[in-house]
């Protein structure tokens, strides 16, 4: 049994003052308010569920390595749904431990954005001796990519050369997979990988940055009746009514990133503010390695500065993300939930609020020196 007292506990939904959290084994077994004076194994100014990075390349593109550590994109073909992120994740990526230093405990690792259909993701913890130990659920999610990345990766050699080509390839493979499902002939690995998605058992993650690409993603998802999430979504504020009307889900971010390309030119924290205020279900991502997962927490501070409440921004990296992933018991600190916890010296969204302890499944996986 571990007893932790926090001056402020964000339990995934609201802020509870002077909370006593009791952990037994891998689970949280008790949360009591108004318990500031009890004896505890740990005390913290702030405590939150471990953060979740909802569209990450961690482990697939290893820090400080070039070609040797880059396994993001199997760009030998533009349509590779049969790839699985779990097969490329290195548990030795130094960014994994650094993520723990920033209170990030979980990520949905997805193939990169070079292919229109990149492959299937893996929900993993940021600690574990092997990818198997890290894994929470795999395969999960199908990565789709719209916009310039697939055009750039393939256009000189093969389709797609245009946004029309991007959409065509997605429509084509989904149509063929649907047909394959109805009258199975010869085994086809690509189509097999898409069957759970077509059956509503998996989720499509469309990377779409520009407003027109966001709308294309919604159109494609509707045509095939897919459960879907738009990731990146820098232009989401331009199409906010459409996203709300379609009850879309967005994973916005990273908040901090060089705007050095056409598709990123409108990136501004205020776009995320508009989205969070709109009622559209919204998670905030680091998009590691585009922005270090370790400092996801600080990017949230920019949103607080623009008027979003701390509870809303913290939910956007915990309970909302877990809900999108369908991960029951994650992203919150309630009796019965996984003891994935981050303890902070101060406000988690401020540089000063550094992480002092991080737990995964009740094990202390990071301690500040």
């Amino acid at each position, binding site marked *: 049994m571990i007893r932790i007292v926090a001056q402020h506990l964000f339990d995934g939904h609201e802020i509870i003052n002077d909370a006593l959290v009791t952990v037994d084994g891998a689970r949280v077994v008790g949360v009591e308010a108004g318990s500031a004076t009890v004896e505890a194994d740990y005390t913290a100014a702030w405590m939150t569920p471990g953060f979740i990075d909802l569209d990450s390349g961690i482990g697939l593109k290893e*820090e400080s390595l070039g070609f040797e550590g880059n396994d993001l994109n199997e760009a030998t073909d533009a349509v590779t749904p049969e790839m699985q992120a779990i097969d490329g994740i290195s548990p030795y990526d130094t960014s994994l431990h650094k993520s723990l230093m920033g209170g990030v405990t979980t990520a949905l690792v997805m193939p990169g954005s070079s292919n229109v259909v990149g492959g299937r993701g893996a929900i993993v913890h940021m600690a574990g001796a092997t990818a198997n130990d890290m894994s929470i659920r795999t395969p999960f999610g199908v990565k789709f990519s719209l916009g310039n990345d697939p055009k750039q990766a393939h256009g000189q050699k093969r389709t797609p050369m245009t946004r029309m080509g991007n959409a065509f390839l997605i429509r084509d493979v989904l149509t063929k997979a649907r047909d394959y499902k109805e009258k199975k002939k010869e085994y086809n690995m690509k189509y097999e990988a898409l069957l759970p998605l077509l059956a509503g058992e998996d989720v499509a993650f469309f990377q779409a940055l520009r407003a027109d690409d966001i709308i294309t993603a919604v159109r494609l998802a509707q045509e095939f009746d897919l459960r879907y999430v738009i990731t990146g979504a820098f232009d989401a504020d331009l199409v906010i009514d459409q996203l709300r009307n379609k009850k879309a889900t967005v994973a916005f971010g990273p908040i901090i990133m*060089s705007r050095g390309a056409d598709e990123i030119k409108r990136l501004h924290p205020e776009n995320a503010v508009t989205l969070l205020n709109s009622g559209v279900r919204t998670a905030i991502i680091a998009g590691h*390695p585009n922005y270090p997962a370790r400092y996801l927490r600080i990017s949230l501070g920019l949103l607080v*500065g623009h008027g979003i409440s701390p509870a809303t921004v913290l939910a956007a990296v915990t309970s909302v993300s877990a809900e999108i992933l369908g991960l029951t018991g994650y992203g919150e600190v309630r009796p019965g939930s996984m003891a994935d916890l981050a303890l902070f010296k101060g406000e988690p969204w*401020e*540089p000063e609020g*550094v992480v002092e302890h991080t737990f995964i499944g009740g094990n202390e996986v990071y301690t500040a020196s």
Partner: protein
Amino acid sequence: MVIIHGGTILTVTDGIIEGGSILLGDDGRIAEVFASHTEVPGATVVDAADKYVVPGFVDAHTHLGICNLEVGEIGEDENEMTNPATPACRAIDAVYTWDSGFADALAGGVTTVFTGPGSGNVIGGQSITMKTAGSDIEKMVLQDPAGLKTASGENPKRVYKGKNQLPSTRMGTAKVLREALLKARDYKERRAGAEPPATDLEMEVLCKVLDGEIPLRMHSHRADDMITMIRIRDEFGIRMVIEHGTDSARIRDDLSKAGVAVITGPLLDVSPKVETASSSFATPHLLHEAGVLTAIMTDHPVIPIESLRLEAAIAAYEGGAGEQEALEFITINPATILGLEQRIGSIAKGKDADVVIWSGHPFKASSIAEKTFVNGRLVSEVKA
């Protein structure tokens, strides 16, 4: 005249003043810093009660305006990679002052930048120092040239190995630099003689380096690269500033002994290369402790320029520097490295009136730069 009533004034070089006033003169300089609330008849009043009043930040290593945001390749004028030594290339000819990065700089409280060529060449070209407000480059520039950009390590050898040209090794990189300086030494001698050679633009700028007028601004990540480049510095008795210095903590005592300043960063990213593996927010503090004059850069657009304060904040709280020291990393220290410590980098009488009013401490991510003054003029305003 403008009178700003604080607030908490972080002067950087003269402590923290609670409730004082700062008078910005019509000549663009700070006319007076008052230790207590002081009315000045005729001055426009700016109320900064409950706010933080901070000197404009200085980012001593950027590619602002040279790497245009938003437009991709057509806006990249960073590396003239047609020759590994292009000392005659001048940043001033490539800075697009309408680039949105300048507005970002002001919104992030950055009022002075050093901007220059990239690290694709061993000798990239001449950098400039400039204010971030305005559109007329001639009026914005403070120093031209401010330094000669040079590079060691992975970047130049990757570029030219790809073309099957020299330099494709670290030895080749050192050779290119040494040869250029030796030729310039010869040119300089002949220039002083009876039959001076025809003017050579490349040699002329290298003579400025040999004369100590401008430093080499040396891109170096790995410790051995820094040691090599300091060796060349000493062969020619020239000035040098180390840029990036990712692995500099390992050799901090050597760097201190060599009297070389280091501009660390970019730090708020995922280390992209083998030579940046030891990137750490603790590096600036370790250097400072060892007596090395240290600054922090964004390397914009690598890290967006408005995030300079966040890098300093993390260095303060996670890197061991503390608030005052980390503030110096983005104000008076880079100003000193640039030789502009009499003009910028702190709030003091007679200095340029580059002053930013923050809604809270600038090291809080949630703080907003509400009003930015450059040369005494309000150039950026955000309604809270």
